[in-house]
């Protein structure tokens, strides 16, 4: 190509000379490391880190919106020397479900639709990873991002409760139950969000579809529950709750995690019904994982 002319000052600007190609003989860490790298990149991406300033705005804002009410409650509890926190750990996520829904709707398409739209997926599969690695990394990343979003305010509440010198055992137990609940919620929401977003390379469609699925299912379920309750058949209420993600979590934690449900009339969920809830939740999580794996087997190069 270019012939080197070291003593040619003929108007050519100073430039860095090619110091030659260096071969790489260091370690190659293989498939598991590649999967971890994809996980951490996706997790950071879910909060806009490593991306443009614009893409940091929404996730960070939602994170703040999740934490502020917790901080206010804590402040009130400390100031008024309350005997207990104004809200249960397990109820917090249910109260702020709209914020969580918005986060899933905005970040699930970000996690998968972008790769499909800009055709980055084939590049990943030209590396040591396989389709299952891609799916696992993305699923784990979004679930972790959601867990951070939902567990952070609980942590604020817990620290606040300890500062307010509330009963340690009580608070720790409640906090632990809350963590289990939001962990399941994170897995469930991440799965549903990813499956919907992985269908379309268009981010907008993904966002709209996720919001639609979450709000319509919740709206329909709570309306039917209210009707069932008014028609004097409260027994049907828990069964109806199986049909929307947030009522699933609500019912599950009512049965097993000492929560009081937000169902109409505060209808209780029996242990037997609770088992069904657990099966359905785990079934949906596994189903989402299976669907994603199937979807990406087709994408390939």
């Amino acid at each position, binding site marked *: 190509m270019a012939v080197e002319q070291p003593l040619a000052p003929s108007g050519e600007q100073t430039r860095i000379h090619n110091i030659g190609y260096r071969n790489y003989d260091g370690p190659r860490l293989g498939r598991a490391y590649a999967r971890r790298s994809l996980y951490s990149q996706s997790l950071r991406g879910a909060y806009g880190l490593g*991306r443009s300033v614009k893409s940091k705005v929404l996730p960070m804002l939602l994170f703040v919106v999740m934490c502020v009410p917790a901080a206010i409650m804590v402040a009130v509890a400390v100031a008024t020397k309350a005997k207990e926190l104004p809200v249960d750990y397990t109820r917090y996520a249910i109260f702020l479900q709209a914020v969580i829904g918005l986060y899933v709707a905005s970040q699930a398409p970000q996690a998968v639709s972008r790769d499909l739209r800009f*055709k980055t997926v084939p*590049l990943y599969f*030209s*590396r040591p990873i396989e389709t299952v690695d891609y799916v696992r990394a993305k699923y784990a990343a979004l679930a972790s991002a959601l867990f951070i979003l939902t567990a952070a305010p609980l942590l604020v509440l817990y620290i606040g409760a300890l500062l307010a010198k509330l009963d340690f055992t009580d608070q720790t137990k409640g906090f632990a139950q809350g963590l289990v609940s939001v962990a399941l919620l994170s897995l469930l929401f991440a799965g549903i969000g990813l499956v919907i977003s992985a269908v379309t390379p268009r981010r907008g469609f993904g966002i709209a579809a996720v919001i639609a699925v979450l709000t319509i299912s919740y709206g329909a379920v709570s309306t039917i529950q209210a009707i069932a309750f008014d028609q004097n058949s409260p027994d049907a209420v828990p069964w109806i709750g199986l049909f929307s993600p947030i009522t699933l979590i609500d019912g599950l934690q009512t049965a097993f995690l000492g929560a009081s449900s937000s169902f109409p009339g505060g209808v209780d969920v029996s242990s037997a019904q609770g088992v069904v809830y657990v099966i359905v939740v785990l079934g949906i999580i596994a189903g989402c994982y299976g669907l994603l794996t199937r979807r990406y087997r087709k994408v390939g190069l």
Partner: protein
Amino acid sequence: MTLVVVLATTVDDVTVIATESLSKRFPRVTALDRLSVDIGPGVTGLVGANGAGKSTLIKILLGLSPATEGRADVLGLDVATKGGAIRERVGYMPEHDCLPPDVSATEFVVHMARMSGLPPTAARERTADTLRHVGLYEERYRPMGGYSTGMKQRVKLAQALVHDPQLVFLDEPTNGLDPVGRDEMLGLIRRIHTDFGISVLVTSHLLGELERTCDHVVVIDGGKLLRSSSTRDFTQTTTTLAIEVTDSDEHPDGTRAVREALRARGVDTNDSSGLPGAGHILLLTADGEQTYDLVRDVVADLGLGLVRMEQRRHHIAEVFRDDRTTDAQDARKEAVGHGG
């Protein structure tokens, strides 16, 4: 022990890619049909029209798509069982756009380096090196959405090279580039082998541009191997000259006059049917300097103006013609020539 090592190296030296009656059938099409080819180190061109099976072959060689029949080895590893190990040592530059617009080239290439298994520090160092080698400097910190096609192609090449593979697959790397960008890219591809010591398999539907870059060219069509030979063989047989002349009062059809005069001197010409400017451009095979002189003399003797005399970039179609040249076909061409 030593012997085995020596043997292994020799085998590596001889073939980088080997396929044995490799077939890939889809429900409606046969993408590859019993393809057997050995490819050595160096720059190898894989030429074929769109849909000839180039991309399918690359997919199989990366271990991403199982072959229906036959087998293939890449760097001595079986594609059916060692896909992961192959992909660790092989780079791939896709034909299509694959760059997210909102990240910078540096960030993107670092990420892809880590996806190939490079530890974080090494990934960063090699990204800086590789981007410089492909000719991307200050722009590398800007989001890639604002890049020109040439810059995007360079990033795509960089991500294929960042983990210092032993072999890279480049799928149509000159697509969409202007002539200058095309030449730069071809020069870069040449350097990948000469300076970096990495073997290259580069696909194109233009034989002409590969001729200058590759040591070896493999031509496939309809999934079948049409030809596999060193570039020198190709150049010797396919240097084609295109000439165009003006008409004059004496020779109202200048093209025809030249054709007849050339035939009288024992040089056959083809009309350029199917190519742009058909009917006005004559194609003939050049046998070195004397052919140029002959054309000049013939045109001057007839008193015509020579509008154009250039070396033709060979299109894939010419290889087919060349390869299948039979007496019958020659005879048919003659007939067409007389008729015209």
